[in-house]
């Protein structure tokens, strides 16, 4: 039935009455998309791979010289780049774990009959709808040791959230958690409400404890959708830029995307930044692949 809808056109439709065949309609929709992808995604991707083996600088008119793997060698030997990767890894772990704990926890709290449930859910989703740069600027003011609301509310005096190099990354991650935990919450809520009620009833009859119920019923059934949320958030956290860039200039918060931006658009080291972008791309692909494998395994269960 579904394939029939895909391949033949409703004879009463407007397109059919204009004399267009279903093949023409299909091409009309698909060819521009494929062209768009080739021109704006595939072509630059291949082109920048070529650049990554040269010493090209976009800011000069000098021709690009082929340097082989020099860019990759230099980058992988640069301790500052390794530090950028370490900072990024730390940030991804703190931020994604935080979002899952807070998001899933909130979803558990909301997954019951409480008054104003719809209103509360909507309000909780608000942070997600703001612009990253604006959130960064607001939180910079909130964290300010001299007039910030956070220190005042928590009675922390002059605590330097962003000034302390050890604390700065956590401060950026907290902002990210505030902003994106609702996203995890939303997906978890969808997963939670899909768990059949009779499973809980059966567990209750068997006198299963709350921990047993959570780990044996709730978590396995929500896991696939939770994994999707985690994949999205990991990819986003890996390439995070705006929040960290706006909030702090501590070396301990210089994630790889910031270094890449500086290299590409402030220093105009086009060849080398293409190489760095490829290293990041390979890493993201590898991590995503592991996740997807795991997701498929979870689904099979």
């Amino acid at each position: 039935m579904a394939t029939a809808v895909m391949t033949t056109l409703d004879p009463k439709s407007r397109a059919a009455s204009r004399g267009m065949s279903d093949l023409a309609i299909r091409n009309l929709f698909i060819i521009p998309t494929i062209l768009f992808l080739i021109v704006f995604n595939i072509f630059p991707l291949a082109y920048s791979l070529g650049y990554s083996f040269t010493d090209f600088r976009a800011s000069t008119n000098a021709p690009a010289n082929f340097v082989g793997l020099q860019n990759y060698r230099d980058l992988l030997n640069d301790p500052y780049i390794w530090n950028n990767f370490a900072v990024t890894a730390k940030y991804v772990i703190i931020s994604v774990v935080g979002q899952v704990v807070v998001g899933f926890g909130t979803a558990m709290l909301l997954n019951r009959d409480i008054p104003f449930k719809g209103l509360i859910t909507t309000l909780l989703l608000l942070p997600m709808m703001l612009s990253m740069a604006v959130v960064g600027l607001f939180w910079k003011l909130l964290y300010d040791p001299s007039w910030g609301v956070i220190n005042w509310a928590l009675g922390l005096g002059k605590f330097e959230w962003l000034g302390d190099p050890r604390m700065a990354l956590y401060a950026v991650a907290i902002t990210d958690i505030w902003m994106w935990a609702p996203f995890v919450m939303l997906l978890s809520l969808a997963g939670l409400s899909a768990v059949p009620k009779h499973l809980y009833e059966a567990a209750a009859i068997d006198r299963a404890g709350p921990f047993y119920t959570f780990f044996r019923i709730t978590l396995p059934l929500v896991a696939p959708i939770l994994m999707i949320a985690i994949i999205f958030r990991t990819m986003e956290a890996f390439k995070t830029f705006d929040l960290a860039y706006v909030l702090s200039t501590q070396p301990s918060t210089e994630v790889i995307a910031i270094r890449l931006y500086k290299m590409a658009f402030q220093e105009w080291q086009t060849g080398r930044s293409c190489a760095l972008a490829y290293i990041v791309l390979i890493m993201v692909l590898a991590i995503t692949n592991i996740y997807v494998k795991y997701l498929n395994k979870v689904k099979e269960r």
Partner: protein
Amino acid sequence: MRMSLTSILAGISLALACGTSVHAQDKQLTIFWAEWDPSNYLQELGNLYEKETGVKIVVETTPWADFQTKAFAEFNAHGNAYDLVVGDSQWLGAASEGGHYVDLTDFVKEHNVLDKMAEATVKYYAEYPGGSGKYWAIPTEGDAVGWSYRKDWFEDPKEKEAFKAKYGYELDVPKTFKELTDIAEFFHRPDENRYGIAIYTQNQYDGLAMGVENALFSYGAELGDYATYKVDGIVNSDKAVAALENYRKLYEFTPPGWTNAFFVENNQAITEGLAAMSMNYFAFFPSLLNESTNPNAKNTGFFANPAGPDGDQFAALGGQGISIVSYSDNKEEAMKFLEWFIRDDTQQKWAELGGYTCNKAVLESEAFQNATPYNKAFYETMFKVKDFWAVPEYAELLQQFNQRIYPFVVNGQGTAKEALDAVAGDWEATFKKYGRVQ
């Protein structure tokens, strides 16, 4: 169907034809600059030009953080969106070697720009490579780093008495870095929510570097030999080490969390009553005198960067020169605008509107020096400014400088000597990479 297509095509070509003819009738020059008050003043000046000649001047702007990226993205694409650009002094190398700027050497010589403008401004805003006699810009917005301070705190008799008892000399506007440091320490009172000093610390692009340069140059140190690219033994000389140590000491008297501060934060230090003294570009001082933006406007004073221990007195250069973009379609018109712009009467108007002119005659006039409380300090500073490297790879040098210096200044990691030795090593390697030294 065919009829309608033909008519649409006809319509489009008609619109295009009208468009080009309208364009040819009223000529327009587009100038690109950053988004700040001086761009508005330049637009007002441009309006005067339009009245005189009929050529419309449009000043297009973008926020500072975006300025370099956007300008070079346009240059790299050989775009003709901008006819002129008021570019940062450090861009000269990249823009001239990249072929993005029109060579103005003949123009400069023909119109005696060298005699009309303050020497340092021509040297840093227009000439590249240094000492080559080749010019790529006309000095436009002179700027340097100066200081603002709280007059009421400095003039309070009780404070004066306490200061004299502690340091043995009168509390007054600092003449040396030693006095600057003493005063910062004296006013640093975290329990009263008052702090000594606000300095640049932002670890991005040229933020921190501009601040450190102020100490470095006044201590008699240099960033390197701009002619031979020698850096070892210069940027890490004993004087440079002492200057950096002094900058680190000043950092200890900044307000809490002063780890990401540039011009916005440093003006806030004064408007929020946080600090006794604050470094900033002169271009940001007008808003400190405006009572609607600074509640302490009446009590804000200004001074030039103080001298170092050996009496050297210099300041880090900000500011920009105006250049013609090679890819512009209106280069002739742009030249005519520059001819008008460098006239003494135009420069006089430029200063009156609020632009920081580099014109010697205007700078030296009594009227200019007394026009605002900071003009005198500006005049004094503009004849003793020094700048960062202007080579095409300057942004890499800045990044390496920040990477090494920031952990020492802000986080107290390592020593000044270690940090500057590392800078010398990084810079040497970079100059080798680009074939400037063997």
